[in-house]
């Protein structure tokens, strides 16, 4: 079964003799990988190459995790919507990031005096190596997982390079 209706129309790519005119015309691939009337592959990676961004979002081998949260696996992220404020639903045992700034921005996390983080059942961000539980604000155990968290990206904060990053493209900087 064909994967796309259009594939029924594919035909052999005939490479024209390379002349000044043919090399400058929008007539098809002359060298493998060269596609004239397309925005070129860019040294500008993520900033300019939407195809690559889309690949990133789908977790293909070329995926590069968010530079601001190295090691986070996109596969564990739920889908997010592009809205001015971003509603993130944590699933399963996924926990929000232990980023004080982001957590402050969230403003909705419960915190209970005397309750330490990393209590039983609570998982600090497994995906941000280097951040320790000690940096987590106090909160009540068990109230994070499976909760719905609404937060606003604050100035200079980098959302992740996946759905959240794509969402961020339309987010105003907030402080």
């Amino acid at each position: 079964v064909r994967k796309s209706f259009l594939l029924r129309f594919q035909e052999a790519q005939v490479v024209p003799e390379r002349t000044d005119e043919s090399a400058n015309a929008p007539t098809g691939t002359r060298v493998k990988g060269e596609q004239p009337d397309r925005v070129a592959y860019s040294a500008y990676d993520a900033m300019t190459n939407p195809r690559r961004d889309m690949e990133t979002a789908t977790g293909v081998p070329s995926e590069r995790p968010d530079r601001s949260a190295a090691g986070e696996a996109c596969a564990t992220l739920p889908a997010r919507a592009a809205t001015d404020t971003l509603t993130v639903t944590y699933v399963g045992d996924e926990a929000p990031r232990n980023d004080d700034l982001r957590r402050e921005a969230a403003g909705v996390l419960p915190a209970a005096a005397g309750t330490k983080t990393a209590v039983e059942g609570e998982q600090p961000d497994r995906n941000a190596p280097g951040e320790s539980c000690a940096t987590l604000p106090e909160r009540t155990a068990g109230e994070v997982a499976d909760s719905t968290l609404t937060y606003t990206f604050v100035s200079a904060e980098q959302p992740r390079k996946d759905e959240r990053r794509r969402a961020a493209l339309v987010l105003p900087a907030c402080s």
Partner: protein
Amino acid sequence: MLLIITNSTDTTADHLAAALGRAVVPFVRFDTDRCLGGLRLGYRTAAPRLRLGDVEYAPGDFTAVWYRRPERLRLPGATAGPETEFTLDEWSAGLEGFFAHIPVERWMNHPAREAVASHKLHQLTRAAELGFAVPDTLVTQEPAELREFFARHGGRVIAKPMANGHVERKGDGPDTIIFTNRVRAEDVGDCAELAGCPTLFQAEVSKRSDVRITVVDDDVHAVELRASDADGRQRCDIRRNHMDDVEHTLVTLPAAVRERVLALTRGYGLRYSAVDMAVDDRGEWVFFEINPNGQWAWMDLRGASGIASSFVAAFGRAGAGALPPGSEKPVCASESATSSKSTSSTPSTTPAPG
């Protein structure tokens, strides 16, 4: 100084470089597939520096940038592998950081703006908003919807890719291509795979001719393209047969079409664009798409246009003729770039990649 960002096999850059040379407009050609051998990148707080051969540049030295066809960076002598990829990513990040200091308005075009302008569906929406005539368009995964669309247009429907028509295969396998094609009744009767991928269909325009419109700032070059299919009609996809038998004629756009083309181009923040339109049997101008980095030099080479002169003028207006201190003539980053004398007193702080 004009900075040309492209690759070493870009013949369009060769074509314009020759014109720039005749006009004595200095430039640096930065071929991303060959540049790393002679490149040094450095940064001290708020002061990025790029050394090409013996000449060191600050972002402000580049009064104009022509963003053509850069390719993935290549490390000279490096074998493919994850560590090479890592190193190239580091290079990319550094170079992007340098280029990011060059104001967006100096670029023709800035790549971020090209990316935004590159979506066919949004182009159609924007064009319709601007008053262009656009073909009735359907993107669907529903066979029933296609059948209804096909019937409504009397069986005169075309299908075309939304991204690009190339099907590339790894290694030496032959590539295939998908042009704009007329949809046949049997296609509509057997289209189960439609559900697997959204496909773009349009009412077929009864074309008298195609027109390629090239915008360079305020200059607009319109070239009529005529060629016939076997049935005598204007060719469904003008790119077939490598355009060998296409007749090229410079034409003047109706004022309203010209204004809309400029509005569309500027609306996307572009200074350059290649717009595809057609004139139908009734003389109406119909919009197909806008290519933010489309080809143009072949029309110059056929004597149908003088687009290179518009580029030369634009880069001249931008003050591209200003040379950075010490550089005496154009250099090319893909070559040794040793022809210019360094006057920099601030050596690069970044070592060459290991």
